[in-house]
């Protein structure tokens, strides 16, 4: 087994008296798609917030390629190669579609404000690079975010396109691992199917490693190399989709105890 790209070791965090994550061990190997499932309130999004540095863990360690991410500022973690999307979309609504993606290149370019003011070569080079990366990432979604849409404000996009744009923005930080928080939430069946294919394409063509939170079990089944199930902040099951989906503890967490007899 190769060394994991992302590894959570005995991760724990409490908010006040509430133990939200407790002794969580998860690892993600390079070019793998791991799904994080669990009932509402299981702590899935909190795991993302811990990895990206929005919250600081009380105990345990988060390793990216063997290096700890604990205690770093979110933007430093992003520049180390972790990018995420948000369950409740957090686009820069008043910026244009293209600018949303361009803004994510901040950490990948170096020119200072003085160089930009004077239009020195390094600033021009950086702008060219930012433009090229943004156009490349937007092109990943076919026609949907191309052409005239570049200059439209993000708030003018449809819900599904906003999800795509957020994904493009995350890709523009040039991450090694993508954390997708419910990418299919609020999508209709056709769009959900599209997202499933897209996540596969992200891994195969984009060469990303992906950790995804998803409620739609069709999506989870379609994309996952491995599934990790959480409940009350603890890992209750791990394995292939079939293994986890049939695990009595997972069924119990989702449906309650009576359901096991029904099955």
């Amino acid at each position, binding site marked *: 087994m190769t060394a994991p790209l992302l590894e959570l070791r005995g991760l724990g965090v409490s908010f006040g008296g509430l133990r939200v994550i407790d002794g969580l061990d998860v690892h993600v190997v390079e070019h793998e798609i791991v799904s994080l499932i669990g009932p509402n309130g299981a702590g899935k999004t909190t795991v993302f917030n811990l990895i*990206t540095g*929005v919250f600081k863990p009380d105990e345990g360690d988060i390793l990216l390629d063997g290096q700890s991410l604990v205690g770093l*500022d*979110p*933007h430093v973690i*992003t*520049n180390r190669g972790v*990018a*995420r999307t*948000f369950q409740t979309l*957090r*686009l*820069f*609504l*008043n*910026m244009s579609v293209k*600018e*949303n993606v*361009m*803004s*994510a*290149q*901040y*950490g*990948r*370019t170096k*020119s*200072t*404000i003085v160089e*930009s*003011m*004077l*239009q020195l070569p390094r*600033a021009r080079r*950086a*702008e060219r690079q*930012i433009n090229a990366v943004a156009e490349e990432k937007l092109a990943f979604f076919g026609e949907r975010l191309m052409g*005239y*849409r570049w200059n*439209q*404000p993000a*708030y*003018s996009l449809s819900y599904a396109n906003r999800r795509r744009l957020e994904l493009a*923005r*995350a890709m523009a*930080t040039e991450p090694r691992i993508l954390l997708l928080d419910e990418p299919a939430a609020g999508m209709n069946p056709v769009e959900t199917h599209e997202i499933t294919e897209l996540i596969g394409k992200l891994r195969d063509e984009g060469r990303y490693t992906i950790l995804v939170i998803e409620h739609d079990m069709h999506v989870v089944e379609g994309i996952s190399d491995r599934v990790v199930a959480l409940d009350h902040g603890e890992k209750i099951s791990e394995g292939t989709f079939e293994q986890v989906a049939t695990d009595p503890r997972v069924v119990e967490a989702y449906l309650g105890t009576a359901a096991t007899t029904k099955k």
Partner: protein
Amino acid sequence: MSTGAPPTPPPAAGPQIGVDEWVRRSGERITGPAGLPGHVKRAADRTPPFVLLAAFVAVAACIPFMTSNIYIQGVATDTMLYVLLAVGLNVAVGWAGLLDLGYVAYYGFAAYLYAALSGSRILTGQVLLADWPTWKVVPVVVGATVLLGFALSLTTRRLRGDYFAIVSLFFLEIFNNFTSNGDRWDWLGLGGTHDLTGGTTGLIDTHPWRMVGHSLLNYSRDYLWVALAGFTVIAVALTYANRSRTGRGWRSLRDDPLAAEVMGSPVKWLMMLAVAVGAGVAGFAGAVNGAYYQQVSPTSFSFQLLITVYAMVILGGVGSLGGVVFGAVVVNVLLEVLRFPNYAGWVFYAGLLIALVAKVRPWRLLAAVLGGVVVFGVVVNAIVGAVWSRGVHGPVAVGADSFTQHGFRAAVLHHWLVLPKNTYEVADYHIGNYAYVLLIAMVLTLTVVSGWKRYALLVPTLWLAAFVWETVLIEQSPTTRPLFLGVILIVLMTSRPAGIFGTPRVEVV
């Protein structure tokens, strides 16, 4: 009359909802402000920004050739200082979305530093500090102000929104306290007190800018050009900065600081940078201020200045460089006009008329209201004239302390308004004050009644407004000026919150 055959839908005339074409053309349907402001805005959008900048600078630079009136040249120079301030404030407020209430402190700091470094004295005669040449002083002042911006924002870098606003306001208060009381500085009790800032009188006789062997002594003209030259460089630099990765970083943190941080932008650093860049612009303006006014004092850097600059930025359109320049010019020229009762009257009546034309529809109603105001005034004038004849023949104010009984305005007012003879006579003076309070009550009532009652009440309210204007406000420009600013902001808030040239922002979708 059914024919039996299903009606064939008409062929799609133009774009339809749900079709991509509809989305593509959504921009065309957002027409922006209607009427004249809309035309101006669309024309401004079409013109490249640097062409606008060149045109503005060219026109402004020619003002000294167009008029030899020192007063007008002075107003132009004041206005350019305001333009610089508004442009600098726009960086933190408009681009990065930080409500920086300490901004004027940077301006004041720079002016004081200029005075201290280039030579000035306190009232008691002691010459302060250095006598540096201008080419050395200005970079040092700007650099020091940028550093001060970094230093102060280091303490606020974790704060957002209201918290940031309150703490930054605190910086302005500290600055004013320090400069007002800096004449008794006692070095933490280590021997004697020293005069660092000249106290409430400040530093006087500051030396002018000296460039290529000449002192800039033609104050109104030379400092207009200096400010314009600085503005040109600053506007170009800021335009490029706004288009760069830093500018996008500012805009992204304005929309969603958490998302910006998680997407790899160092939000705390970008916040500090926005404050410091704005401070740098204020620093340059301060270095011009210190020389141009030939003195610096704490009262020049008050909270009221802050509010004025904010009004300029808000009026012009937060976040739009051209907009805030426009706002600064309009607000300062307007405030200047209000100093002169003759011109102020035109501004007042024209403003009322424009507001009525814009808000009262249809035109029949407008005509009724205007006719009602005329008739109401004539009737009241006749009644008051019959009972208290001197009440309608008072003099009309035309200057700060000058009055007239003649001319068109006086003739109209004598038949329409009530003018107590001498507003300085205590009893008459109170009439104006009571009327003022009554006017406020009536305006507030106007906002809560609706339908015909509103228009019926509008007639006496307009007349009373004219009465209050002619008897009280016209002579009290220190009060009238902030009052006007307040009215402008309230009207703008209800009609166009984004400002005249601002882009309306969407917060939640």
